[in-house]
């Protein structure tokens, strides 16, 4: 006996141990064995008293698969313990196609319950290989087996089964609904005639099954008959007709709804919103986005009450287009609901429309207990942008929650009311950075003397952060009257303030700032020198080149790199000789940048020194130099 066989035998013995842990270990190890013996042993574990072991065995068998395993399992379909039968059925289904042949054999088992079980599992697997044996099972003496076989044939979806199913529909009253459903699932046109024949069937169950089947099979040809039934149909039948019509319409057959009377069309869409079919719901929501009025908006709002994100997104999209047609309906929700998610959804929708008629109702939510609702309220009021909302925004700017305050201050900036400047200034003292920045942004947008004075004062604030914000803000305000304080800020002890001041002066482009910016080229901080380079180029364009030459010897390599790039972009011809010298710089990035800048300048004097770089130890330098030579030689 080989080691493998010995181990297998030992594990099989271990499975009979009284110790659960021992059996569990054996079961786990058997899962790694191939072969019928291991499979049979795991199937036998289905009778183990311990649930954990039964589940381990089931997982192992699903991994093993194979017809032999499935055959062992089918034996358990007649087990006296229903939990064992159910576990075997579940594993057979999960094994899938390997189970089909053994299950087909079971369709002729002497036990009717096994035959039904087999048909049910075959239906779940949905294999076309089972169609012929299932067709044979339609002649079974047991009604339950026949019904299961009919269902399984529907799930297999093979048109070959249609004639036999039609025969069942005609001859076996007990299997009629199942046969209709199966025909609907298969969706073959050959069954349309018999389905339409039963559309007015006296038996509700049959009639309902037909309507469901017609919808399922997208039976466009059935649409006229379905529509003609609407006026005389009872409520349930009418609902089913609506569902059928929507199902047909959403499959590229929208035209079938167009000749419906308006109230019927709307009713049809509303019913679909209430149904369970996601695709029909999405179709109805898209359709309703073109409608207007309270009833439409109310139904759409009600449809927001779902956890399905696709539906919610679609409804919100539709509401953006319809919400303004139902102010009262929206106001009712805003005042009557305490559902935060719903309120935020509605607020988002309103903020997209920015419609001032919602302002009063939205403002009421500024006292809502949920800070997320208050935050969205502030944002929405800002988007509405009407001065009537300012008081509410000011109140929200003093909210206990930082996100709410930030949102409110930003909105005040959008609405833009100079009278509220003091509230914005208070925002600059807020403990939260986000709130301070929102206040600064709002002040930039509003502008005006009082705000400029505040930022000028803030340049000397005790907090370096406030100083930086002030320099930045003055730059964004960009009025000429801020030029002098910004020039003064070039001597500020904080380099970030000096840099912001340089950037701000560049934006304002006042001539008074040119000399001070040139002075900033010598700032002790590299970041300020880099900003001054950009600023000077903004002022003087390519004439700035001569002032930048000294910086080509800057002690900071990144300043040097920045200047070379800048010179290359403005094509400052006066710098060719200096750039050529830099081709021998000790730093790789400088040599690459110099080669690229010389390419931009296009001066033929640079060709020889560039060619000399062909033996440079750095491949990036060689590539840049060779490309530069190519560019210069090509240029005139």
């Amino acid at each position, binding site marked *: 006996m080989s080691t493998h066989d010995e181990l297998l035998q030992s594990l099989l013995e271990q499975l009979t141990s009284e110790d659960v842990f021992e059996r569990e270990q054996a079961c786990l190890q058997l899962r790694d064995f191939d072969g019928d013996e291991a499979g049979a042993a795991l199937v036998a574990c289905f009778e183990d008293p311990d649930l954990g072991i039964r589940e381990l065995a089931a997982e192992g068998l699903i991994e093993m698969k194979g017809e032999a395993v499935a055959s062992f399992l089918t034996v358990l379909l007649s087990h006296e313990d229903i939990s064992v039968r159910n576990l075997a059925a579940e594993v057979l289904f999960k094994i899938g196609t390997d189970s089909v042949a053994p299950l087909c054999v079971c369709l002729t088992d002497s036990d009717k319950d096994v035959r039904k079980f087999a048909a049910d599992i075959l239906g779940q697997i949905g294999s076309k290989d089972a169609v012929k044996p299932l067709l044979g099972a339609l002649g079974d003496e047991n009604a339950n087996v026949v019904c299961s076989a009919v269902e399984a044939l529907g799930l297999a979806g093979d048109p070959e089964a249609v004639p036999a199913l039609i025969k069942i529909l005609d001859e076996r009253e007990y299997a009629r609904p199942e046969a209709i459903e199966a025909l609907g699932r298969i969706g073959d046109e050959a069954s349309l005639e018999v389905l339409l024949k039963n559309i007015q069937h006296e038996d509700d169950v049959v009639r309902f099954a037909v309507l469901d089947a017609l919808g399922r099979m997208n039976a466009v040809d059935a649409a006229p008959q379905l529509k003609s039934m609407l006026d005389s149909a009872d409520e349930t039948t009418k609902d089913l007709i609506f569902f059928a019509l929507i199902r047909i319409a959403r499959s590229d057959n929208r035209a079938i709804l167009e000749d419906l009377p308006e109230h019927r069309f709307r009713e049809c869409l509303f019913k679909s919103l209430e149904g369970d079919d996601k695709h029909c719901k999405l179709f109805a929501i898209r359709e309703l986005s073109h409608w207007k009025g309270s009833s439409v908006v109310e139904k759409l709002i009600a449809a927001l009450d779902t956890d399905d994100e696709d539906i919610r997104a679609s409804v919100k999209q539709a509401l953006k287009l319809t919400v303004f047609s139902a102010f009262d309906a929206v106001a009712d929700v805003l005042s009557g609901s305490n559902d935060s998610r719903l309120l935020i959804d509605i607020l988002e929708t309103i903020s*997209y*429309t*920015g*419609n001032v008629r919602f302002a009063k109702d939205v403002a009421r939510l500024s006292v809502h207990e949920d800070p997320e609702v208050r935050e969205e309220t502030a944002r929405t009021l800002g*988007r509405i942008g009407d001065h009537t909302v300012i008081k509410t925004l000011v109140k929200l700017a003093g909210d206990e929650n930082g996100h709410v305050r930030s949102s409110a201050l930003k909105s005040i900036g959008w609405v833009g009311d100079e009278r509220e400047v003091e509230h914005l200034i208070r925002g600059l003292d807020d403990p939260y950075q986000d709130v301070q*920045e929102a206040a600064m942004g*709002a002040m930039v947008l509003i502008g005006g003397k009082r705000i400029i004075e505040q930022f000028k004062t803030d340049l000397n604030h005790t907090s370096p952060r406030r100083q930086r914000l002030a320099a930045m803000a003055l730059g964004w305000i960009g009025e000429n009257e801020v030029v002098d304080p910004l020039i003064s800020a070039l001597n500020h002890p904080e380099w970030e303030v000096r840099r912001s001041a340089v950037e701000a002066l560049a934006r304002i*482009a006042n001539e008074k700032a040119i000399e001070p910016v040139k002075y900033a080229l010598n700032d002790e901080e590299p970041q300020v020198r880099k900003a001054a380079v950009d600023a000077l180029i903004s002022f003087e364009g390519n004439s700035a080149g001569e002032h930048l030459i000294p910086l080509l010897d800057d002690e900071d390599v990144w300043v040097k790199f920045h200047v070379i790039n800048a010179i290359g972009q403005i094509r400052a011809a006066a710098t060719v000789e200096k750039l050529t010298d830099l081709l021998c710089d000790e730093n790789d990035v400088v040599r690459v940048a110099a080669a690229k800048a010389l390419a931009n300048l296009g001066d033929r004097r640079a060709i020889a020194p560039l060619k000399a770089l062909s033996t440079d130890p750095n491949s990036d330098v060689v590539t840049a130099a060779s490309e530069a030579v190519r560019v210069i030689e090509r240029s005139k």
Partner: protein
Amino acid sequence: MEVSKEQNSGYTCLHLDGRLDLNSSSQLKDQIKGLLSEGVVNFIIDLNGVDFINSSGLGTLVSILKDVRMVKGRMVLCNLAQYVHEIFEITQLSHIFDIYPTEKQAAETFSGSAVNVG
């Protein structure tokens, strides 16, 4: 920089392509000033094609926003490249502008504007 104009119901979309610096931004500002004088007040600025923006470009956008607000109009930005977005964050301009990921989303914000009129 190239600016292409697209007139839509309720807003005008300006698609920017290229560098947004001092020179090009003044061109943009002039163009918008011209539109404001014609009574066009709602704008989407599509920054999808902007591959470079400096502080002059940003300053011009702030200045344009202020001009638009003066006439009770709206200006929103969309399609910011990642690096442009980062610049808006660093400079705190994300607190000032109304920014949308796509032109479609930006356009939806103008869908209700027409109803406000009158």
